[in-house]
């Protein structure tokens, strides 16, 4: 027990986890918006839009997140010298959020598309029959039902996103896994406590998400 107290007193564990939560929250909103747009691309009647959506998903989903993160910092910042903010902390935070957003948008897109598949074809035909074109039909008829059917895969993506925020350490963001390296470097005598602190921290973040996802998917499922 003393080990935990020593770690919490000496290092800003909460602050580091708060950084993970912030990254997760902003990237979750960003990837949801981008993912929804991509899903619209993929179900659109225009062939070139579908091709763009498919290409994005296949390329980004199959690129490891670390590569995207390192590409941003090493190439775009390091060599092309693109700077969003003059403050390094804010600049790298932005890079991390962009990388997380781009990567997870492809998974959100696929989750929503799986939700779209749960909407019976008759719904779309009925929408067309009352004179709705593609976008209004998608907005009013298809997406509301699709999102309710996609809660479980969306929740899974959110959980993956939460854990993937640790990759932001590669972009110089001071989050939990970076703090773990620091703690191991300076307090190897507390190794087991360090591991448990980080592991428990992530359990506390992720387990409620899983419970909430299950509860929501039951509550909001479309009764047909």
């Amino acid at each position, binding site marked *: 027990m003393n080990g935990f107290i020593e770690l919490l007193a000496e290092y800003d564990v909460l602050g580091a986890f708060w950084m993970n939560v912030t990254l997760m929250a902003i990237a979750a909103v960003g990837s949801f918006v981008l993912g929804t747009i991509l899903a619209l691309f993929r179900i659109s009647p225009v062939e070139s839009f579908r091709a763009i959506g498919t290409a994005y998903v296949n390329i980004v989903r199959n690129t490891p997140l670390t590569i995207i993160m390192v590409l941003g910092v090493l190439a775009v910042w390091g*060599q092309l010298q693109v700077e969003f903010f003059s*403050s390094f902390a804010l600049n790298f935070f932005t890079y991390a959020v962009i990388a997380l957003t781009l990567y997870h948008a492809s998974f959100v897109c696929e989750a929503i598309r799986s939700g779209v598949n749960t909407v019976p074809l008759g719904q779309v035909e009925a929408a067309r029959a009352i004179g709705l074109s593609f976008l209004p039909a998608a907005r009013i008829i298809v997406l509301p039902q699709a999102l309710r059917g996609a809660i479980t895969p969306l929740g899974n993506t959110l959980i993956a996103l939460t854990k993937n925020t640790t990759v932001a350490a590669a972009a110089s963001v001071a989050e939990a896994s970076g703090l773990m390296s620091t703690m191991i*470097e300076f307090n190897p*005598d507390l190794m087991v406590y360090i591991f448990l602190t980080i592991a428990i921290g992530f359990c506390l973040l992720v387990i409620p998400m899983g419970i909430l996802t299950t509860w929501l998917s039951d509550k909001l499922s479309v009764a047909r």
Partner: protein
Amino acid sequence: MRTKLASAAAVAAASVLIMSACAPSQTGGDEGGEAEGGGDTVRIGIKYDQPGLGFREGDGDPTGFDVEVAKYVAEELGYTEDQIEWVQTPSANRENALEGGEVDMIFATYSITDERDERVDFAGPYFVAGQDLLVRADDTEITGPDALDGKNLCSVTGSTSAQKIKEEYAQGVELVEQGGYAECVTYLESGQVDAVTTDDIILAGLAATPENAEKFMVVGNAFSVERYGVGIPTGSEMCEDINAAITQMKEDGAWQEALDTATEGTGYTPDEELNNGPEAELESCDD
């Protein structure tokens, strides 16, 4: 219930089979690495990614100052070069590798600290380094940590060396932390950062690689003391022999030679005072 019991028994039997199938290969592995008590080989932990100190590409011969000291010590302990088995020990793994018996000793820029001493023992130090700055060769502005206000600085995640500068010397410094020093050096070259900080000898090793030759220099104004020790398992009997070997290496000139080779062309010289002063005094092997 019966079927459940039967299937449980089947699973148990199967796992016993699997375990016994694994067992012979494990003993086989142990026989090969029978290093405790002066057997066939000695397993030495080094870094693979620090040019000038511990560097290895693929299965090639490792190079660097740490490696040279390790070879010398191993020879004094009665092992030829062929009997050395090199093992990669990244910073976060060093204590575990010693405790788990994966290596017999570690030469990997391993600073002696009280916290580490609780889990492992140290022989040495074989070198005393100090935190310093690496800057572009044409930079005359940055002469020490105080001159870093308004500058950009790079270091490695999980080291507080950069934090220390921010807290103690220059509050207006912007920090970027990366996975390795190689990234930092590319930023230094492209101009995105103005200095890289860590132990002086690591910086000198980076600056001495052929692709970085003549581009960077070590400022040479060390502002901390890092005593590089030889990590050994707690209670290891090799401690005194290692200390004797290090003393001899320093006396017969091989130490200086290895150091000169590792940092050639960087104009770097290790701090005379530190390396001959009280900080360089060998650890006692009694605790």
